[in-house]
């Protein structure tokens, strides 16, 4: 099972909904449209030829400079049978930051999507319990977004006299 075979199968089945194929460090990487991400994951998992049935990770990326595709949700999946990995990306606009949940396919997606919501504010539609998982519940922002100054100049908890800065 090679990257080429999997990519050709995906293009044959999903046509224009899969695009931007790459192979950084030999890892098959592609973008998927938001509408087709769940069918693609389902197909990779259930196809008898591939059996890519382990969800390694879901995470997010913020690209503040990409107009109308500021956010990216990244899925890593792994086939234990063939020892084959694939990386899927879904780009989202800041104004419509919704993506369907994968928790219907993978139980483990539940917590990973909560984490991605916690840090990036990406809304996973249909998620059974979309609330913060790592940060405190009172937090009113999504800390991994690249939209905050590196340091708040008005803070006074670490003053020069004590911390020399």
């Amino acid at each position, binding site marked *: 099972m090679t990257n080429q075979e999997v990519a050709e199968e995906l293009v044959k089945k999903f046509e224009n909904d899969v695009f931007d194929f790459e192979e950084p460090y030999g890892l098959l990487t592609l973008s998927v449209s938001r509408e087709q991400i769940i069918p693609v994951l389902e197909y990779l998992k259930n196809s008898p030829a591939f059996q890519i049935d382990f969800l390694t990770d879901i995470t997010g990326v913020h690209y503040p400079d990409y107009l109308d595709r500021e956010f990216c949700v990244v899925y890593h999946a792994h086939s234990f049978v063939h020892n084959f990995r694939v990386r899927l990306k879904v780009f989202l606009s800041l104004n419509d930051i919704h993506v369907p949940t994968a928790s219907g396919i993978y139980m483990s997606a539940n917590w990973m999507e909560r984490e991605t919501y916690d840090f990036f504010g990406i809304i996973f539609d249909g998620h059974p319990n979309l609330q913060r998982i*790592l*940060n*405190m519940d009172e*937090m009113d922002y999504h*800390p991994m977004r690249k939209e905050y100054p590196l340091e708040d100049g008005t803070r006074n*908890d*670490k003053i020069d006299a*004590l*911390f020399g800065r």
Partner: protein
Amino acid sequence: METSIKTVEAPDGYEGSGFFATSFDKVIGLARSHSLWPLPFATSCCGIEFMAAMGSHYDFARFGSERPSFSPRQADLLMVMGTIAKKMAPIVKQVYLQMAEPRWVIAMGACASSGGIFDTYSVLQGIDRIIPVDVYIPGCPPRPEQVIDGLIQIREMAASESLRRRNSPEYEALLASYKIQ
């Protein structure tokens, strides 16, 4: 009879045949300072260093802290060792609230004292933002000798503390400033 066993020296007082008179402050302080039961609240690497201090080589137990109390209700000394995330802060505070007076607190290491290198959105910048602290032990992590030095300072505080200190207006104002009680 010659012996190598050291016993505690008696506090100042009047001594005569068959009696010894001194004040409760001194006797109770003496007793407390020799049986401080610590509650190790260890969240990270400072906790590992505390285990070294507790082990046979440094032998924390010889100062009367033989029994680490994992129940706050039987503990005298809360030792917070390691990074306290903001999400952990209410738990530290609840553990402190469950301890009975008199209670002392040690903040061990840079993280517990000031947040340390974790100057970030998720980490509490020193446990003194939520509970009063008696002794800060610097270091990242501190050596076991420093931990023992911190404990000895707590012992001195316990031995010399007036019995009425915990009822004093200053102490109540301190607790009120942390919104305790």
